[in-house]
């Protein structure tokens, strides 16, 4: 009896293994096909799409690199993401803390105000936002765009910080106040270091959001000099839609920075995503 149960379980176990392997192959298939064919010539690509290249070439990458102005686009994306994330952390950590520690009607109202707005979808504000962008001369301005990301991102981040501060004993701050710190000093020297775990979550979720966002840059940026990686890739696709090998290299090049980042920090990223999702 016991043996039968054991055998039954192990057959099931193997079946699940088979399922997982098949799912894994399907999951990696597009990435694998893009990588595989990015080293071929266009002629080779059409004779056998599944085979390894017989004469692997880096020409496609050189072409893609130049056509999509990779260096510039990458720098733009890094700048935009870094500044956006910095603003979100700077603005919302202090606000989330103050909202949690101030027990007045006003603080309650402001918090509700932020939380409610999380339900407003981007497409609902897209067009009026475009008008503001024009009025502020933010078109083609990466710094301006990062301010917009701050405006869209603070509510969620404040919500996360607010929840986290609740779990920090107030006595620590009181002690610092008694020692003669003012409120600003208390925040910067005592509270902010304690917020590190939630700051990591805020940084990771927002960095990924800004880095991978397409629609907002599509509306705001029209000068090629300000293009992000995604916009450059998209342009390439429109202009050379038959040159698949250089498009595939461009896709690999644009995906590469995040993939590398992910492979190095996967534990932190997955933990950050999980806590962001469960609290949000």
């Amino acid at each position, binding site marked *: 009896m016991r043996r039968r149960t054991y055998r039954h*379980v192990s057959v*099931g*176990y193997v079946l*699940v293994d088979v399922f*997982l392997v098949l799912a894994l192959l399907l*999951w*990696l298939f*597009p*990435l694998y*096909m893009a990588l595989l*064919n990015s080293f071929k010539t266009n002629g080779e*690509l059409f004779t*056998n*799409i599944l085979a390894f290249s017989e004469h692997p070439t880096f020409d496609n990458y050189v072409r893609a690199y130049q056509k999509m102005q990779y260096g510039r686009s990458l720098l733009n994306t890094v700048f935009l993401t870094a500044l956006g994330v910095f603003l979100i952390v*700077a*603005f919302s950590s*202090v*606000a989330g*803390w*103050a*909202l949690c520690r*101030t027990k*007045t009607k*006003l603080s309650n109202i*402001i918090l509700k105000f932020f939380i409610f707005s999380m*339900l*407003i*979808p981007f*497409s*609902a504000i*897209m*067009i009026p*936002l*475009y*008008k*503001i962008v024009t009025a502020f001369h933010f078109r083609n301005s990466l710094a301006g765009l990062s*301010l*917009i990301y*701050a*405006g869209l991102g*603070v*509510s969620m981040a404040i919500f996360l910080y607010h929840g986290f501060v609740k779990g920090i004993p107030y006595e620590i701050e009181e002690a610092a106040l008694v020692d003669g710190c003012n409120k600003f000093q208390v925040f910067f020297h005592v509270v902010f270091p304690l917020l590190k775990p939630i700051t990591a979550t805020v940084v990771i979720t927002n960095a990924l959001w800004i880095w*991978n*966002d*397409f*629609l907002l840059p599509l*509306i705001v940026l029209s000068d090629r000099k300000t293009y992000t990686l995604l916009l450059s890739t998209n342009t390439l696709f429109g202009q050379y839609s038959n040159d*698949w090998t250089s*498009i*595939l290299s461009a*896709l690999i090049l*644009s995906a590469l920075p*995040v*993939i590398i980042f*992910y492979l190095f920090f*996967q534990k932190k990223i997955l933990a950050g*995503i999980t806590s962001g*999702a*469960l609290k*949000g």
Partner: protein
Amino acid sequence: MNREMQRKANLMLLLFCLPALTVYIIFKLFPAISGFYYSLTNWNGLNPTFDFVGFANYQKMASDSDFWRSLGFTAKYVAAFVVMANVMALILAVAIESRRHLRGALRTIFYMPNMISMVIGGYMWMFIFTKVVYYLADNWHWTFLDHSWTGDPNYSFWSILIVSCWGAVGYLMIIYIAGLQGVPSDLKEASKLDGCNSFQTFWYVVRPLIRPAATICVFWTLNSGFQVFDVIYTLTGGGPGTATQSVAINIYEEAFKGNTRFGYSTAKSMVLFLIVLLVTLVQLSIMQKQEEDL
């Protein structure tokens, strides 16, 4: 005295919240509110002046067949996406959590598509759907693949769905795994001792306990499903014609391509906003009630 202290506390609070409030009001709240106002005007984006037209834009929508088609397409897409993505994510989560080895590696790989933008993912799949699939159909005689996966709306609906799921399932899976890890193992062992098989244990013991995770995942898929843009933009561009336009694509096209009828497209976006709000609120109240009933 007390009131004086409260006033001081509020001033301090406003000071600390000032930067966040400023960007939030300018870039989120004001657009949302002014959006409602613009939806009542005939603003066309080019003319500096425009007139108040009341609910004319909303009336015009009633006879706009493209808008209705995009709404129908989005509804169909959301229904299929919510079910498929959540079922796939849950199956993967359970399968991975039941492994003895390599759980971390599996999680890492299945989450990978979430790291890259759906624009890049969409174009990678575009290559599969327009090149690789035909190669398989011709050389391996997999004739069931021999369709226009991005050109024929009957099939491109499924391509769009496949790519969206590919891009979303990893995220949902992570949340479901966190839920599964929260189920106490002694409960599962007790049910095994009571004679449950694996499926019964899952259905009667685990499933009720991961409801909070399901609430989050369904909420997220509803929300992102209604706003689907990137995947459709890259795969079909909403075409052929307007056959695969989602509401977000329809609004974008209306506002930024060809005719810049901003007033009219903001009216559409207000409708989308109301639909998303209503659907997600109903979903949250139903699913949270189920959680409480336990």
